[in-house]
């Protein structure tokens, strides 16, 4: 079931962005804490570029914490200001293109998922019983969600580099879904280089490359084949249904090979850009070190900034370890339970990272909400969707209000803003838990359908 008016809606979303960029004037979105973080702020990138032009290291001082590659790509665009337009109009145009590309790749990913879903349902003889309830084109939905998500629009217009980071994650997932090892490796290396946290996506990427896109659990196929063999199914069919499960080591090795090549390439480029003005060790210290040690305590939509502004100094190291480990703790349990659905696993990891990362922003949420659309069919029976939907709206309305009261009017205080951050983290927790729960429930339903 394809969506009517798909292309007009895509064009409208892109056009809306262009209108905002070209005619919106300076919306001051770049300084919103929800939009740009110390890592992604384009203003800081411009400062880094200026420092580099002054033959200082772009990382001297604590202004710039991004990648040297972005510096050389976007830096020249930030320095020439066109009169009347807001400062980073050229960069914003690039971001519009990047967003469009990301949406198209999400759509492509959705198609692959849809194909694999249909194939597996067919092999399970469940096409009728599942599809008559809901079968929408998930890729179209996901790409439209990504394009029309207000947060994605704000992120794109608000001159910060998160659209590029999101694109890299999407490239990685697309590449892995379509088994293009070099593309997946490129996306993985770039995403990790830009914001470190996508490093944990190595698990779903390898699973995707090894087993192929999402499918019902292996047990379902086994149950199916055993029931088929009872009912006297041909040997050939059994093998074809089991062939899906085999782990293809060649693709993974291919991926690892390309991973190595791309990381060498990125490091080489970085060191060439930073030549004479600083070294790679400084780059790692100022990018990854800055991410992991939460040095900047300026407010954002997460909770860690206030936590580390308030926590006693002698506990700081302990809590840094705890919070960073918290992301890693769930990697293995999730991977074990959801190994048959690597793409969904990637979505869950992205959501967890967006919730627990040290400098979260609306752009991270825009990414995982877009990916959520890919599983529209599987998650159709998710609970609390009403609460989540209005919770997200409420938080995104209240958070700027509280920030304004605290920072600009001086009538509120930090706790007001922190409270919205807490609520937001709660909502994300509910989203993650519910989506995982209903995906497991969906798999169980499939098994019941097969056995019955």
């Amino acid at each position, binding site marked *: 079931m394809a969506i009517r008016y798909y292309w007009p809606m895509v064009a409208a979303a892109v056009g809306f962005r262009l209108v905002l960029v070209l005619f919106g004037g300076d919306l001051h979105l770049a*300084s919103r804490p929800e939009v740009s973080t110390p890592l992604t702020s384009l*203003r800081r990138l*411009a*400062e880094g*570029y*200026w*420092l580099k032009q*002054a033959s*200082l290291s772009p990382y*001297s*001082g*604590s*202004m710039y914490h991004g990648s040297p590659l972005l510096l050389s790509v976007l830096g020249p665009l930030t*320095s020439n200001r066109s009169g009347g337009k807001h400062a980073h109009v050229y960069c914003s145009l690039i971001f519009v293109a990047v967003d469009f590309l990301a949406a198209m790749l999400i759509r492509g990913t959705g198609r692959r998922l849809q194909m694999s879903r249909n194939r597996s349902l067919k092999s399970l003889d469940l096409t009728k019983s599942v599809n008559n309830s809901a079968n929408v084109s998930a890729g179209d939905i996901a790409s439209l969600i990504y394009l029309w998500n207000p947060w994605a629009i704000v992120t794109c217009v608000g001159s910060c580099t998160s659209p590029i980071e999101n694109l890299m994650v999407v490239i990685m997932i697309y590449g892995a879904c379509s088994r293009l090892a070099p593309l997946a490796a490129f996306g993985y290396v770039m995403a990790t280089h830009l914001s470190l946290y996508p490093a944990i996506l190595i698990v779903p990427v390898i699973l995707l490359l090894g087993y192929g896109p999402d499918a019902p659990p292996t047990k379902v196929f086994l149950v199916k084949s055993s029931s088929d063999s009872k009912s006297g199914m041909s040997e050939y069919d059994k093998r074809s249904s089991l062939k899906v499960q085999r782990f293809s080591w060649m693709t993974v090795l291919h991926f690892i090979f390309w991973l190595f090549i791309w990381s060498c390439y990125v490091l080489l480029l970085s060191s060439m850009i930073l030549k004479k003005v600083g070294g790679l060790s400084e780059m790692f210290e100022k990018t990854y070190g800055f991410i992991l040690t939460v*040095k*900047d*305590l*300026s*407010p954002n939509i997460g*909770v*860690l*900034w*206030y*936590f*580390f*502004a*308030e*926590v*006693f*100094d002698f506990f700081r190291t302990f809590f840094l370890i705890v*919070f960073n480990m*918290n992301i890693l*703790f*769930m990697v293995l*349990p*999730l991977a074990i*339970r959801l190994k048959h659905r690597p793409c969904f696993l990637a979505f869950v990891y992205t959501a967890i990272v967006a*919730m*627990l990362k040290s400098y979260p922003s609306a752009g991270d949420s825009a990414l995982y909400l877009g990916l959520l659309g890919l599983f529209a069919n599987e998650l159709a029976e998710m609970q609390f969707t009403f609460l989540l939907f209005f919770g997200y709206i409420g938080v995104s309305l209240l958070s700027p209000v509280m920030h304004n009261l*605290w*920072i*600009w009017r*001086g009538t509120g*205080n*930090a*706790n007001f803003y*922190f409270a919205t951050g*807490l609520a937001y*983290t*709660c909502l994300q*927790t509910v989203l*993650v*838990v519910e989506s*995982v*729960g209903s995906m*497991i*429930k969906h798999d*169980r339903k499939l098994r019941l359908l097969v056995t019955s």
Partner: protein
Amino acid sequence: MVPPSPPPASILFTRLVLLFLLAAAAWASAVPPEEFTEELLLRPLPDRKALSHFYFRSFAPPAASVGRHHHLFPKAISQLVKKYHISELELSFTQGRWNYEQWGGFDPMSTSNAKPPGVELWAVFDLPLSEIDATWKNLTHTLSGLFCASINFLESTSFSAPRWGFKSNEGNLRYGALPREAVCTENLTPWLKLLPCRDKAGIASLLYRPSIYKGYYHSQKLKLRSSQSLGIILDQTLTVVLQPNTINGKQLHSSHGQLQPSWSMRHLFNRKLSGKCLVSKSSRIFIEVDKGIVDKINKSGSDLSWNNEFFVLSNGPDRLIKDLNDLEVQSSSIYEYDVSNYSEEKPFDVGITWKLPLTWSCTPSPFHVSRFLMGSGNERGSIALSFTSTNLHKKIFGSPNDCSIKAIIFQIVPWYVKVYYHSLEIFIDGNRKTVSDVVDKIHVTPSEDKLLPGTLEMLLRFPCSMQSATLTLDFDKGFLHIDEYPPDANQGFDIPSALVSFPEFNSARNFPETDPLLGSPLLENFQVSVKSYTEVLLVPLTTPDFSMPYNVITFTCTILALYFGSLLNALRRRIGEEERELKKTATMHGLIPLLLAKLRGQKVDAALSGSSPESTGSKKLLFKVVFVAVAAVLFHYFSNNS
């Protein structure tokens, strides 16, 4: 040198002491002896105030010649110099702000003695570059102990190493400023202890605390210069601007048509001077009369004597010194008095009495510089530095239109004010200029969080025809950890004064007939380029809730535990098995498994539908338990009462 009175000991010992003293005297005769001079300069100011500038110089010959013993020079200072290998050092404590418009911005007094509010310290070390930072930290601690001030706050995050903006050097200069530091007698007392007569005799005895701390501006400074060949020169100055209590009791603030207040030393300091400090080499008092007054006197055709048409000094001076500047800009005249002619019986008191109303103005600096903040809210803002021309260059250079004036800006910004240096914008007479047109040279040391303040050094070149210029820099306000806020966090944070110097303008004086004047360090010292400090800026920063740490820790950890627990629960849960388990538990008789099942929120009705007798049985059991509990409580209650 007074030998200690010999104790009632053997004659041999006395002789030995004498021998030693003779030897020391012989040594001392070979090298220049330690010297001490004291001077005071008084000057009427155009806005009916009076400036008094105390100047004490101690000199110690090169260290090798005298060893570790001093008889005039303060030992604490010589130890400091030797230990930290200081070649130059200046420490100033200032309260109030020098009024560059009224009190002058061009004359040597304002360029070398107008200091930014609070504490300013800079030092040049004679050490390898790698050791300087560590030495600076030790130095700040030593000085803070020596002067009872919190100079040790300069050790970590608020000092910088300017290369040419403050004073050109080879990287061995460190500069730091604490604008918040309050100055009071506790800083003055240790400063006075460095003088050989303290405040018991000589000019320092004028320093009556209630009157000097009543002033509009108070700056106490200590300057050290040291080298292997010259020895150590220690200059201690105290600059005070006071409002004289007029003799006739008139205190009118309008200076038009009103007589300037007449004052004398007794009125200013509540003290008279009873002779000099006995160990001082020279002890002099100067009364300086501004160029504005001198011009008026010259114009009226009368003689520039101590008793002229406009004013009369209470005592006849020992000498009159005229300053003939080449540039014809600054030419004041100075009346000199020698204190050594006065004594306890004949105390010295000099004053000025005005005869005619007189208005004049001091020579301003080439540009009047002020600095202010723009923007509102606690997230971001801009620093603006504005220059307004005083057209001084036209008086000096004539008015060619193609000339340009150089200005050097030196500014330190604390790390929590995160300046975007790429956002520098320059407006000249209201028109935006490209940065490269105006900025000749720029050197930036960006600030590093919790480590290093940002330093900006800029050499600008303004066209002579310019009337006003404005520089703006955007910044973001940082957010601090709660421990980093001072006790009164909502007051805001201070950005130290910026220093603007004009290297093409020299405020040196020359006195043509001052050959015998060589002994006056107060007058010879005036050889510096014109510079002025801007205002201190007060930046309000957002504060977190200081009472919240426990709440924040518990809330955040609860959320994380919620996430972790519920996600793990969702993963662990196997619904099919649970249903089987539930069936098992439902068939078991008992209250606790039932309650547990209810608590878990699972539907037990289906399981229980076939076993209603059991459910009534469990209700009876519940009844029994409650009954027994109530009985026990009642029994306990009554047994306690009886």
